[in-house]
């Protein structure tokens, strides 16, 4: 059976096969029954006719015997006529029996009967002639007793044999007809049983095939529905995750949009500040030039200060030299005063007054010496201060030089900064423009994301609907599988 056939075609083919088989069985049965009936009717008719004709022979022969017996008793010719009529009846019956008897044995027996009856008729005619001729009754009686009677018994026996033979044939034919009928019945029963078995097999095959195919299809549908449900679940989960992700993306895009706007605003501010910075830079450049000139002036002043301080140091050294002279003079004065005091110690009154003067001179010399020492200390401090100042001034000069160089570097850096500020201004304007374009693009992306989010929600809804449909389909498949397969095998 082809697998591509539909169930309707299969069922139709199965029913057609069953109907055809039924028709065949019915035809076989009808044919067999008709055959049996025809044979039986033919046989029974023939045998019945043969039997009837045989019985007619016996009746006609007995009537001829009776008519002969009437003649012999009465000697009336009427009985001879009746006897001949009976014999004609007999012969007629024999003639019909020849057409009725089909078997050779029956024909032989019938021929013997006719032969014997002809001989009996001859004897009977002779006896009748004798009797009519008034012969001795004894001769006739003896003839009757010796010839006619045995022949009569022989004929009766043969007719009985023929009847028995025909009855046997009849019974045999009837038995054969019954056998045929039984065979036909058996054949019909066998064919019916075969048809039943075939129908059962066909039903089983069809059922199994249909169940297997439907079960396979249902299982396939069930598997497909399970896969569909899994896919729908995954799609629903994916749609949920995608929806969540789209929400996050939308939020992020919104934040990005706000950030882009803030960046654009900041870039605009940066551009404005950069312009102000450029203006301030130009002003600062002028200030730098002025400051550079001022620093040059400071450097010149520092050089002058250094020169003055060096001159001050020299003058301090000169003061120190003079102070050494003063100190030397004070020391010598002191020595002289000490010597004067020593000299005046042993002198007279005038010497004592001189001693007073000398003592005062010594004191003055001491004070001069002390003051000289103080001045020396101060001069040393001044010289140290001058030295420190010179060193500091030289350091300042060097620092001023370094400052000059650094200032020049600062000026160069300032010019570079000015250039960079210009570049920054241009870059900030480009950033502002780009950020505005970016914000516009982000708005478009946000709109697209909103559409995608809407689509995702619709996808989620359709996925949920598909999940429900898949579940219903799975339930229907399970129900259908339960219908076509037992629960144990299902």
């Amino acid at each position, binding site marked *: 059976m082809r697998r591509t056939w539909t169930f309707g075609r299969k069922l139709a083919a199965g029913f057609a096969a069953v109907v055809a088989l039924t028709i065949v069985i019915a035809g076989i049965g009808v044919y067999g029954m008709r055959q049996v009936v025809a044979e039986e009717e033919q046989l029974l008719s023939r045998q019945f006719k043969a039997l009837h004709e045989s019985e007619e022979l016996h009746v006609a022969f007995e009537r001829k015997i009776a008519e002969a017996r009437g003649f012999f008793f009465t000697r009336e010719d009427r009985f001879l006529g009746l006897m001949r009529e009976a014999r004609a009846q007999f012969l007629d019956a024999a003639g019909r029996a020849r057409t009725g008897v089909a078997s050779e044995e029956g024909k032989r027996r019938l021929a013997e009967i006719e032969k014997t009856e002809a001989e009996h008729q001859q004897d009977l005619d002779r006896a009748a002639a004798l009797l009519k001729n008034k012969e001795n009754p004894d001769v006739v009686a003896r003839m009757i007793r010796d010839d006619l009677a045995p022949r009569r018994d022989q004929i009766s026996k043969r007719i009985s044999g023929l009847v028995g033979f025909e009855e046997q044939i009849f019974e045999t034919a009837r038995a054969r007809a019954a056998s045929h009928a039984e065979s036909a019945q058996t054949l019909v029963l066998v064919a019916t049983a075969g048809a039943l078995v075939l129908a059962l097999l066909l039903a089983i095959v069809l059922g199994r095939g249909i169940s297997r195919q439907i079960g396979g299809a249902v299982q396939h549908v069930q598997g497909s529905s399970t896969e569909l449900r899994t896919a729908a679940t995954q799609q629903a989960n994916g749609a949920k995750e995608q929806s969540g992700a789209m929400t996050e993306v939308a939020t992020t895009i919104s934040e990005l949009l706000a950030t882009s706007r803030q960046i654009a605003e900041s870039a605009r501010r940066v551009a404005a500040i950069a312009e102000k910075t450029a203006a301030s830079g130009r002003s600062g450049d002028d200030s730098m030039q002025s400051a550079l000139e001022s620093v040059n002036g400071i450097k010149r002043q520092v050089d002058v200060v250094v020169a003055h301080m060096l001159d001050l140091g020299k003058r301090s050294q000169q003061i120190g030299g003079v102070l050494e002279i003063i100190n030397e003079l004070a*020391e010598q004065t*002191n*020595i002289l*005063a*000490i*010597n004067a*005091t*020593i*000299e005046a*110690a042993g002198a007279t009154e005038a010497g*004592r*007054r001189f001693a*007073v003067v000398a003592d*005062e001179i*010594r*004191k*003055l010399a*001491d*004070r001069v010496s002390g003051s000289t020492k103080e001045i020396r200390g101060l001069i040393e401090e001044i010289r140290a201060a001058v030295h420190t100042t010179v060193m500091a001034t030289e350091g300042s000069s060097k620092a001023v030089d370094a400052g000059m160089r650094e200032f020049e570097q600062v000026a160069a850096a300032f010019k570079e900064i000015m250039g960079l500020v210009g570049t920054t201004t241009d870059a900030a304007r480009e950033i502002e423009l780009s950020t505005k374009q970016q914000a516009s693009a982000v708005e478009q992306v946000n709109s697209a994301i909103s559409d995608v989010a809407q689509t995702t929600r619709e996808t989620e809804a359709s996925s949920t609907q598909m999940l429900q449909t898949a579940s219903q389909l799975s339930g229907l498949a399970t129900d259908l599988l339960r219908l076509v397969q037992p629960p144990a095998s299902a």
Partner: protein
Amino acid sequence: MSADEGRLGEMRRAFDSAFAAEPVAPPERVDLIALRTAGRPYAVRASDVASVVATGTVVPFPCDEPALLGLGAVRGAPVPVYDLAALLGDGAAKAPRWTILSHGPERLGLAFDELEGYLRVPAADLAAAPDPAAGQAATEIVRAGSSLRPVVSVASLVRRVKQRCGIPTKER
């Protein structure tokens, strides 16, 4: 008024009072010449000293006395100059710039490093040295301010030098 102006006024008043006051007899005080040699402070009585002069040029003179620096010239007369620190046993003076001259016809000079000043102290500030040091020449000590310094007897040093040189001493 600054400290210098106050100090200047004090000096002027002291100087003026010196001329205005009547000359009075010096109190019982002792005049000392404070000096430092070989890094150690000493003092000598002014009465033991004829004068204080600059050491000047000293010509080395061969002698067994290690303290003898040589011969110097004071007002045209040769004077043997000795190292005061060497005589006191303190080693050699670093730069003997000053020289004190002893009294008498056989004067000698004692050279030392630094003249620290002229001291006029009460006699009560002088005391006998409890442990005479500096070659038994410092027999007294004097309190000058917050410090003590040995008072060297020039006469004792002169006698010791003469004894070393075998010169007979004359008691005045």
